[in-house]
């Protein structure tokens, strides 16, 4: 019941997000058709505004974007808006005029999705064991070395990591290609550059989680019962220690799946990060709003999944 309510609540929330981002985009100075070279006549600008309806009042533009409502032509005939968000149409792109927003998402998502999942896997695959290990070796040199690496991963941005990886593995040793998105080999370096930050975050979360759990009473009880240390750690402690990581995974995955401008630029990857940033600076309204909606839906859905996962992992959690 609780989850049904949560799902039902998502729809108005997404609508509200779309409305706010729509208004914010239009509030930015300038317009999508501003160019350094002005068209030779004002008619050309007018034709553009008329074609894409950017000359209409904001509310009408938003309703048209949603696909709700109608307009009258010169003869007074009623034309209902076709397309629109409610029919799954995210609108046109003003800056990639041959493509609709749906085309842009359909081309970028199949790239950002696998790359995001790979980076997610990498972040967990590296972060969890590292966090676990540093917690187990708490206070020893392994802990300090591991924690230092984790902090380093968090502090050094992809902007620096990416080129460093390139210089080492693609240019000096030539193990991997320098750029493009063609084969699984092309994905390795971007995956690392994208996932490293999150690996560091996860290692730290995991370490804290483990340290907290190991001090809780049920662990002491289990130890007193004479349970083997391996069973204790892997079967009982980890289930609770991993909870902060799980809550963090939701937003992290949403972040990773929607692409990163920096990484995509360095490795020339056709994901969703580049269109998003370019559309924001170029005021390509529908592209920005469409991608914001995509991100919002992903974030809401993943958070819901996280809450569901809690039920299975932590016996103390119950939802009404």
């Amino acid at each position, binding site marked *: 019941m609780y989850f049904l309510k949560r799902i039902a609540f998502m729809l108005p929330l997404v609508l509200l997000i779309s409305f706010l981002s729509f208004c914010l985009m239009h509030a930015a100075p300038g317009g999508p058709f501003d160019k350094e070279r002005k068209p030779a006549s004002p008619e050309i600008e007018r034709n553009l505004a008329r074609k894409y309806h950017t000359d209409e009042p904001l509310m009408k533009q938003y309703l048209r974007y949603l696909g709700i409502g109608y307009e009258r032509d010169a003869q007074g005939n009623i034309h209902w808006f076709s397309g629109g968000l409610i029919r799954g149409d995210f609108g046109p792109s003003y800056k990639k005029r041959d493509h609709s927003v749906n085309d842009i998402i359909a081309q970028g998502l199949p790239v950002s999705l696998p790359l995001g999942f790979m980076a997610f*896997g990498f972040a967990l695959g590296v972060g969890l064991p590292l966090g676990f290990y540093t917690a187990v070796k708490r206070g020893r040199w392994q802990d300090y070395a591991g924690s230092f690496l984790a902090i380093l991963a968090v502090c050094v941005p992809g902007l620096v990591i990416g080129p460093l990886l390139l210089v080492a593995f693609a240019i000096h040793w030539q193990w991997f290609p320098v*750029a493009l998105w063609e084969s699984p080999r092309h994905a390795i370096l971007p995956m690392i550059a994208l996932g490293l930050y999150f690996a560091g975050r996860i290692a730290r979360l995991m370490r804290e989680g483990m340290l907290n759990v190991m001090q809780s009473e049920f662990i002491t009880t289990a130890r007193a019962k004479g349970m083997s240390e391996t069973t204790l750690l892997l079967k009982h402690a980890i289930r609770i220690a991993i909870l902060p990581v799980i809550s963090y995974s939701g937003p992290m995955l949403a972040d990773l799946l929607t692409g990163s401008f920096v990484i995509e630029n360095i490795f020339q990857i056709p994901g969703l990060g580049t269109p998003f940033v*370019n559309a924001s600076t170029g005021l390509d309204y529908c592209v920005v709003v469409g991608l914001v909606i995509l991100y919002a839906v992903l974030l809401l859905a993943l958070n819901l999944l996280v809450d569901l996962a809690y039920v299975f992992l932590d016996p103390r959690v119950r939802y009404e």
Partner: protein
Amino acid sequence: MNLPAISPSLRLGKFRPAIDCCLRLGFPLFLFSLLLFTGCARNEPRADLVVINAAEPETLDPAILTGQPDMRAANAIFEGLTRLDARAVPVPGLASNWEISPDGRIYTFHLRTNLLWSTGEPITAGDIVYSWIRALDPATASDYASQLYYLKNGEAFNGGKITDPTLVGVHAPDPQTVVAELNNPTAFFLDLCAFSTLSVVPRQTIGKYGDRWLMARPLPASGPYELVTWRLNDKIRLRKNARYWDAANTKLGLVDLLPITSAPTALNLYETGGADIAWDKDLVPVELLDVLVKRPDFHSYSELGSYFVRLNTTRKPFNDPRVRQALALAIDKARIIRKITKAGGIAADSLTPPGINRYHSPKGLGYDPDKARKLLAEAGYPGGRGFPSVQYMFNAPAGGASVPHGKIGVELQQMWHDELGINVELRQVEWGTFLSAESRLDYDFCRASWIGDYNDADTFLNLFLSNNGNNQTGWKNPRYDDLVHAAERETDMARREKFFQDAESILIRDEVPIIPIYFYVGLNYYDGKKIKGVYNNVLDMHALNAIWKEPAAAPGH
């Protein structure tokens, strides 16, 4: 330190938990995503030629594109009555020959008899009329519709003042003949016919798919190549159009155009053999320019582009031409080249660049700080005393752009301060703000640049006509307008050049609403021993069908 060890008995399987944990959680996810990815891996054959084409095209629709990367790709797919050859000179394209009426206003083009779309249907004169009318149609909303304003009634039709397309000056009396009727004898009309806006596009496909017609496959092509795949920010793949009238001379089968804006990425890819040509100056990392220009595979050449300073002539003290002249005379352009643009610029004394067709620029003001101080004193500001505080506006370079607007601003600020005693503030603004401030004349002076649309002085000099939207200086000069209009009407090329020269003298010597700073230099890199058929030219356009690879240099292809 006395910390309780949390796992005293973990000796045997010291690393077991970690490995286990990794296997349990991370690894399946990793495998899953690898699986996901291998599913997406592309089994495409390597192209015969890989070209880095700078920014992702906004559109490949020839009627609405404006960017140079867009044009370089679209020119390979769609051709006009004329086409640009390997040296970017207009030569017969879809039309084999033409006649021009004695008054220079009526062009009669005769189409070749072997014209086919890549999908097999014939290309007719009707397709050309359709394509030109479509570019002018208000519903198409083409930025470059003005390239067809030279046609009779072209501007009126585009502005919606007339709605009957048959009144526009382009007709097809028979399927092999196109007659274009112009307002004025337009000396560069054959250049325009090779310009993308006037290319021939497939009517049936556009009728069927509307705005997204370029996503249709197969896409009928009228040029030497057809579009196979276009994935945004990934690649444009072109394949030789076997039905092109000149297919016998198309050298390569598959060509990839990569949209890369990051100069280091482009250079990395080129250096590791992933690309054959990088043909845009934005693809040269500025930091490495000094080293790179010395290499034999780097090429620099002059281009139809000018960087200049715009002055707002509606504001005091810039409303006084003597002040404007003084500001211009105090700029040591050679120093800007030496310190900032380096190999990427040539000091400019005029607005129109060298190498432009049918034209030689008049002499400009040059660098003369003594004269500058004298003029400023005459204008009432001896030694800069009493000169109001003014702002020099420039935009923060957009992502990846290498034009150092800020550095030039600092340099100008210093020159004006040292030579004239004027204090200039720098005002850096974001791109959108810059453009709107510029068009609202909400600035004192600002940076500006212009890239020629066609190889003729008119593309630079008509900017400063009183009513041109790109003027943006508030400067209006009836004599200048008369001279430019007279040149546009003139059929005698020597007199035409004189009119333009007189006009430009007013612009850069007498009135100075703008101060030329430097001319753009085109830069590209490719190994000239392996890649043949690339001729660097002022338009920086390269006919793809003329490019080939030395066979010995391409084993394994």
